[in-house]
């Protein structure tokens, strides 16, 4: 059985093309599956962190209660409200959850964050409201005069 070289080469090319198309088709199917799998995974990730969110928002929503609270010593309940935005609360949700800072309106009443202020101390240093909050150090201010 004599096969001419040209015919042999042509046959090989046809076989190679057939195999190539088959492989390419298989690869496309696989990548399509992978892509859809990744989307599904992303969707899961997008919905998963939503679980701790209600905890955070619940705390944030609780803050207006503070705002509504009347000024006075009898109202100490706002401190009982869990601070949803505390670092520990953020850490519970998921590994990539970033601790949020509690959103509080600026004002001078209970439940509000006072406007920025600065005080001069005897040693010449200055303490600002921002520093106090950053250090997480509570403060009690009493305004007085010596007379």
């Amino acid at each position, binding site marked *: 059985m004599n096969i001419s070289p040209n015919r042999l080469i042509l046959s090989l090319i046809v076989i190679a093309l057939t195999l190539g198309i088959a492989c390419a088709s298989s690869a496309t199917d696989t990548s399509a599956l992978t892509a859809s799998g990744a989307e599904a995974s992303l969707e899961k990730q997008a919905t998963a962190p939503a679980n701790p969110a209600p905890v955070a928002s619940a705390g944030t929503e609780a803050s207006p209660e*503070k705002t509504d609270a009347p*000024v*006075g*010593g*009898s109202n*100490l309940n*706002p*401190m009982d409200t869990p*601070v949803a935005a*505390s670092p*520990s609360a953020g850490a519970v949700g998921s590994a990539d959850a970033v601790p949020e*800072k*509690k959103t*509080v309106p600026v*004002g*001078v*009443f*209970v*439940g*509000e*964050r*006072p*406007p*920025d*202020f*600065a*005080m*001069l*101390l*005897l040693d010449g240093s*200055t*303490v600002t*409201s*921002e520093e*106090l*909050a950053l250090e*997480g*150090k*509570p*403060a*009690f*201010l*009493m*305004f*007085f*005069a*010596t*007379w």
Partner: protein
Amino acid sequence: MKEIYPEFADDFTFYAVGTDPSERLDKLEAYREQEGHPWLVAEATGTMLKDLKVLVQSTKIGLDSQGVIIYRDGYGQGDEETWRQVFQELAASAAGG
């Protein structure tokens, strides 16, 4: 108040802020020593008094660890029991409560 604060001195800082611009820190400090007050004296800078709407003497403001006001009272308001409660709240705030 001066009897209660020392119990909580490690938990929060008490600042007695002068309201009379003519009374500088040295005068406030002399008064503090004379009265045996266990807190720091401070002088308001800028428009702090105006911004915080400090309109009456002996206005008191408690700020929790996040800088949020948890207590505010004016002259003649509050008593030992109230302040102890406020101080406890501030201490709890410092502890992350």
